[in-house]
């Protein structure tokens, strides 16, 4: 879970000076204890808000419903997991993967240049620029999603503009399409990509790039062989921070999407609310969680070995 290099990197760095200071005074045992104490709040948070709910979901997923739709663990079993693999969830699962993947790629493609620019050319305005990236978070996600409707609907801003310019005569259908969903999701998750990218680009020592240039690398070569590999941890962190929540998103596809954009998360929500079948919904949710987690770990491992060269 805490596999993102950007996340583990920061605490490690923070813990570094502390342990160095204590090691000058006494042996490492006390330092290790202190280190453990420092981890406690974070670990406690993870256990309380991630592990415990996950265990709870797993337990519920083994149960069934009584006549009043209450969860009962009278006959625990894995029946719900069999039902979680019914074929009707395949298209929605593929939708989720597709939307999350496109959102991630587009976010990285847009986010990397932005982060790079802020880091290299932001100068004393860096903090301000990063705050600007964060500002959308001050507004409710629902409201931000709704503003896309105002832009994209048939008589919305975009269509009015296109018609005024004379590019089209009839409104182009933008709302309730794949395009509107991907626009909305990319917009929503872009800051998740920019922040870790910024951190890793900003930490990159410009002298390393300069050294590359000294060795007759072109600007492009220096970027490919120096900047890109060294910021890869940030790219991976950004990709994960975008892909994982995007995979579970159903609000955006629900509000901006159409009949073809249903996601697996929407199916899970329906099993809980419309179906009032918590165990079934929990099983499907747990499967999604395991798939996400497994995929993430696998991706991390492969990327670390191949790209970073075993960190």
């Amino acid at each position, binding site marked *: *879970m*805490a*596999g*993102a290099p950007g*996340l583990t990197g920061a605490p490690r760095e923070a813990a570094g000076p502390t342990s160095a200071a204590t090691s000058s005074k006494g042996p490492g045992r006390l330092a290790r204890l202190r280190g453990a104490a420092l981890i406690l709040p974070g670990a406690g*948070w*993870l256990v309380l*808000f*991630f592990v415990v*709910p*996950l265990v709870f979901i797993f337990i519920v997923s083994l149960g069934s*419903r009584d*006549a*009043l*739709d209450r969860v009962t663990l009278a006959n625990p079993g894995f029946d719900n997991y069999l039902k979680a693999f019914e074929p*009707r*969830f*395949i*298209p*929605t699962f593929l939708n989720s993967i597709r939307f999350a993947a496109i959102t991630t790629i587009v976010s990285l493609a847009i986010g990397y240049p932005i982060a790079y620019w802020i880091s290299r050319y932001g100068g004393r305005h860096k903090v301000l620029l990063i705050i600007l990236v964060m500002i959308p978070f001050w507004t*409710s*996600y*629902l409201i931000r999603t709704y503003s896309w*409707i105002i832009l994209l*609907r*048939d*008589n919305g801003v975009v269509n009015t503009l296109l018609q005024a310019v004379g590019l089209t005569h009839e409104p182009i*259908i933008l*709302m*309730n399409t794949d395009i509107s969903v991907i626009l909305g999701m990319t917009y929503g998750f872009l800051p998740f990509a920019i922040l870790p990218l910024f951190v890793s680009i900003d930490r990159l020592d410009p002298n390393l790039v300069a050294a590359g240039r000294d060795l007759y690398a072109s600007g492009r070569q220096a970027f490919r062989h120096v900047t890109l590999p060294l910021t890869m941890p940030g790219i991976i962190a950004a990709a*994960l*921070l975008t892909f*994982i*929540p995007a*995979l*579970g*998103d*159903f*609000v955006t596809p*629900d*509000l901006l*999407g*159409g*009949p073809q954009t*249903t996601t697996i*998360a*929407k*199916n899970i*929500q*329906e*099993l809980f*609310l*419309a*179906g*009032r*079948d918590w165990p079934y919904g929990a099983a499907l949710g747990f499967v999604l*969680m395991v798939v*996400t*987690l497994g995929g*993430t770990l696998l991706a991390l491992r492969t990327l670390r070995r191949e790209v970073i060269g075993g960190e």
Partner: protein
Amino acid sequence: MSDRYDGSSIDLEKALTRYMVERRVTRRYLLERIALVGGAAALGPVIAACTSAGQSASPSAAATPGASAPESVAPTATPEPTPVPTPEGELNILNWTDYLAEEVVKSFEDKYKVKVTPSYFSTTDEMYAKLGDDGGDYDISFPISVDVPNMIEKGTIAKLDKSLITNIGNLGKEWSDPGYDPGNTYTVPYMWWTTGVGYDPARITGDAPTSSKALWDARWKQHISMLDDWQEVFGLTLIQMGKSANTDNTADLDAALALLEQQKPLVRTYSTDTIGTMTSGDIWIGHIWGADRFAIQETIPAFAYYIPEEGGVKGSDTVATFTGSPHPIAAQLFINHLLDAQNSAANTNFIYYMGPNAAAKEFIDPAILEDPTINPDQAIVDKLEELLALEQSVRDEYLKRWQELRG
């Protein structure tokens, strides 16, 4: 990282649930609007015609409750032969805002010397949370009929004392034995509404549509919406096929699914935000909750609504009292009070929903009675079907097909 994923998705789910529920609830929230704007837009001419005789020039809709007041001066015809037990001095009501005429509460307070304390909720979730397992501190509330069987089984709703509810005979015959509460043993119906089809006449040209098949008309391709509600969507389709909206026959459900699969390429969105999609111009004709039309008419005054000629889905709220009610006698008397013909009419005149009260009709504002979308012809009323709380296994069959459709 995954904890972040988990956390944010729960947040969003909550937000969405709240949003969905509130949208569904808008119809109630809109009641005040109906009186102010919808009344003026939809019923304005009719009301004006009816009230111009002696009324002042004040906003016509606002004047209508007053218009019926003089008629209610007539002495109450309710006989009370058996001595009524003395009610407790208080009554706690949990209600939607603007869902009960003030004059009805006032007349109850005066008649029985009971002090009524109203409390309000804005979503059904909030209502059920406040009621808990035995009604909490509340004596009276208004559960949606579909939720009634569950609340009876859980022991939340208390049985009615029919000896105190002498006005029960005022109910129309179609309400005397509802599917959700046979024989009205635990609840009495309060108000009812319909789900149907709404359209923008500027876009839907040609003959005015009367059938739900208009939602399958290829001419409106990409401008048709269906509610994001499996029971409503299957209900409309089944009724169009001449089947019961609550069928448990899987062959019927398969046939309905096939029809809906045919329709899907024409559908722009499955959404409960019909107010948003209609007013934005994206949707020209859609499956909507009847009361949402008033809000849409604020933007599109000519917006039309109809109950499909094949029949439609109706929904209703009930009045109930609870096993933990602190003032049980006052509660029973209040339910009886609501069933009084004039009181029921006063509520309809205030809320713009029809009540189930056959005896009330003569006291209801003619403008409401003449609006076929609020008070449909008996022939249509006979074809309206209430969505019931389906048995678990049946519900699963619906949901499975719904997810197949949406996938």
